[in-house]
């Protein structure tokens, strides 16, 4: 840092957009690249889902052959979890965390760039399998022995392993970067007790990434050795264990659910207070519940395995742990509701999507508690009831929160407001389409419709539910079309947003929209959890009360 007098500041020639993208180490540009890349993969995953619903709309449909259907559900799940859900949240985290804590960049800017490119190339490598003889057809959790060379002789499973390995390294790099940034680069005065809740949740999220990904990486390397070099880790014929894969995979897989949902919780915890014009109810308990969720989420993985025939004792322990995780999650929900209670609600688009998140995630959570009960799980496992449950959690939770975050922070990223009328159309179409798609799946599942089947016979009572689900996908497609139109129009001719369009309270709103490369001309000293409130109301600051 220097002054004009003492530094030879060279105004460099402006590089092309492409050159900027491939050489950037700016957390904001990388954040936007994450969002764009995940948007691209989202389109692919959406197309895969639409094709599946098209096939399942009628019994005995022959639009897709079974192998293609297997490839579609494998790639849809893999894409949504690894190449849409995580990157979109890491993208928001990348963009917002340094701004929220008053830093100029992430702790390791170049590692940040490496992480993004590894994720992106990992995704491309996985998708290249479509052009290399066929996509993976093993389900997104690739159970042994289906992945063994005996049952998967082509290279599709190898592409799946290698693509996820490469992108997983990038995700771990991002996790390390977040932890270091949040622990070491906070603005003066910003103690852990004054961290914005989104940052708290990104911190716990990053720790979960660092803990949960290595077992998956290890399992995938073991699987690669099985397939390529004749090892027998998961080959039961040669003394291996198919169950070992499930344990390793789900030891990653269940924390992964929270890796996907914690940043969404963080977004909601930022948005709800601003649009209720009240401080968050019980800041400490929200932060503590986040840490609690992080810990407990590492001890519930085997609830995905109730049906494999573990002992009753193990089943009971994991059922108990799963019930337990409902407690901190419930605390959060109550905190959000209590923040809304008595507030002066502004029902702008970020708030609408936040309310959508609250109601949809609650429904997903309730069916989750049902599934934690072993006898019920035995009854409905591997049916569409489970598909409905996790879509209510991950779509109704994460995607709705991401939409809320997009409408909330887009003005900061672009300097322009999104059209509120189109935003409402987007919200109501998405809410209707989402419930129309996934609500009926509960009933199809209870009527015994197994997941992953490519067709079904008439007479089981499944037809009407499948037709409704397919109709819902069309409505959802319309919703996302409205979103893309809105973004395009806004970027072309949207109303200027100003620095702080929502009259918010965290540090990112103290920067220009979009922020300068260095983020802050002057980093404000932080004295409370609402630093901008303190600056706007010097006669009535929060720090007097905290």
């Amino acid at each position: 840092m220097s002054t004009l007098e003492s530094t030879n500041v060279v105004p460099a020639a402006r590089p092309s957009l492409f050159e900027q993208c491939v050489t950037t180490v700016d957390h904001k540009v990388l954040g936007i690249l994450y969002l764009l890349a995940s948007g691209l993969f989202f389109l692919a995953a959406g197309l895969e889902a639409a094709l599946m619903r098209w096939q399942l709309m009628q019994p005995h449909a022959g639009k897709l052959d079974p192998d293609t259907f297997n490839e579609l559900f494998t790639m849809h799940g893999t894409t949504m979890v690894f190449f849409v859900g995580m990157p979109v949240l890491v993208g928001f985290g990348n963009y917002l965390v340094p701004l929220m804590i008053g830093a100029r960049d992430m702790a390791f800017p170049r590692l940040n760039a490496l992480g993004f490119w590894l994720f992106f190339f990992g995704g491309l490598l996985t998708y290249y399998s479509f052009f290399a003889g066929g996509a993976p057809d093993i389900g997104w959790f690739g159970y042994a022995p289906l992945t063994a060379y005996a049952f998967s002789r082509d290279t599709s499973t190898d592409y799946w392993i290698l693509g996820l390995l490469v992108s997983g390294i990038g995700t771990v790099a991002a996790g390390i970067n977040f932890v270091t940034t949040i622990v070491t680069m906070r603005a003066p005065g910003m103690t852990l007790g004054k961290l914005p809740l989104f940052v708290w949740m990104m911190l716990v999220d990053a720790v979960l990434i660092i803990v949960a990904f290595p077992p998956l990486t290890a399992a995938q390397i073991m699987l690669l050795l099985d397939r390529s070099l004749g090892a027998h880790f998961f080959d039961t014929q040669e003394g291996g264990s198919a169950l070992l894969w499930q344990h390793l995979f789900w030891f990653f897989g269940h924390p992964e659910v929270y890796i996907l949902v914690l940043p969404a919780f963080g977004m909601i915890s930022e948005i709800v207070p601003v649009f209720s014009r009240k401080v968050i109810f019980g800041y400490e308990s929200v932060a503590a519940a986040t840490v609690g969720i992080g810990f407990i989420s590492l001890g519930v993985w085997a609830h995905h395995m109730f049906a494999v025939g573990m002992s009753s004792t193990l089943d009971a322990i994991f059922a108990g742990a799963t019930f337990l995780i409902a407690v901190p999650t419930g605390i959060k929900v109550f905190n959000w509701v209590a923040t809304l209670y008595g507030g002066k609600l502004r029902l702008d688009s970020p708030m609408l999507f936040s309310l959508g998140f609250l109601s949809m995630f609650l429904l997903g959570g309730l069916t989750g508690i049902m599934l934690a009960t072993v006898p019920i799980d035995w009854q409905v496992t591997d049916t569409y009831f489970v598909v409905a449950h996790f879509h209510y959690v991950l779509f109704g939770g994460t995607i709705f929160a991401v939409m809320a975050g997009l409408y909330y922070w887009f003005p900061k990223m672009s300097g322009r407001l999104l059209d509120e009328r189109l935003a409402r159309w987007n919200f109501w179409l998405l809410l209707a389409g989402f419930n129309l798609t996934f609500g009926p799946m509960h009933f199809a599942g209870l009527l015994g419709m197994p997941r992953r089947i490519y067709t079904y016979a008439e007479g089981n009572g499944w037809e009407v539910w499948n037709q409704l689900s397919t109709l819902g996908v069309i409505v959802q497609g319309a919703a996302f079309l409205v979103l893309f139109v809105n973004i395009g129009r806004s970027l072309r001719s949207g109303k200027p947003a100003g620095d702080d369009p929502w009259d918010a309270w965290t540090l990112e709103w103290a920067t220009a929209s979009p922020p300068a490369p260095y983020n802050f001309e002057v980093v404000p000293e932080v004295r409370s959890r609402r630093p901008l409130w303190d600056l706007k109301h010097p006669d009535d600051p929060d720090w007097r009360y905290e």
Partner: protein
Amino acid sequence: MSNEHHANTNPSGEPAASFELPAPTAWPIVLALGICLLAAGVVTNLAFSLLGLMLAIAGVRGWVLDLSPGRAHVEEPLVEPARRASPIVATPHKIEYLRPGMSGHRMQLPEKVHPYRAGVLGGLAGGVAMAVIALAYGAISGRGIWYPINLAAAMAIPGFDLGTLAELEQFSQTRLLLATFIHLMLSLFVGLIYGMLLPMLPSRPVLWGGLIAPLIWTGALHAALGVLNPAMEELVSWPWFIGSQFAFGIVAGLVVVRSEKVYTSKLWSADAPVDPLHPHKPH
């Protein structure tokens, strides 16, 4: 990592004329491409792996050289005034004081809640009342006191319906421990919910906690169990089950409601300031 990431101003207190930021570099993308090709070669052709290895080595070398003195950072000049953040405008006004009933941005509603301790005690007391009713049912119905306990354990033990009625009437240490754990956890959980929710509900909290909540819960359970677990539904005596739910609700509600309330937050009290310009409007 810049060790000056929070340095803001020059000695005169003005923003600096430039800021030291990490220099743009293409080596991360080169390294990532190298790693990706290294992996791709495993399933395509080892030539790709070889190329990937070369790229990865080049990427690491370039990255290391990038970190040498004078190359790691660039000086980013202060953007022109039009692109800078607007100064934050303070809203100077005198302070009035919140009065009960007046809305305020810092007010935590409800203003007072029952302490967590009351929720825990309420949950425990309600749990005991519920257990008494359930055991009474076992004794009166002639199936024995272990029957309701074993049914509760069956929530978590798969394959319970393989057990005969006679087995469900026998003592089982595992089932007793499991049922106790489940009952204790659920009682504490619901008790805590009562402690948090009852102050937010309209008047007559005991009516909400003792009658309405158990009715909703039992109704939902009755509807769900018929679909999800018909065998279990046949084994449960619903009148007694509803009775035990009411016992829990009433006892837990009474314990919670009779506890002394505490302020939810020190952020607001009747002496806390409020924005006098908009006491009833959002800031």
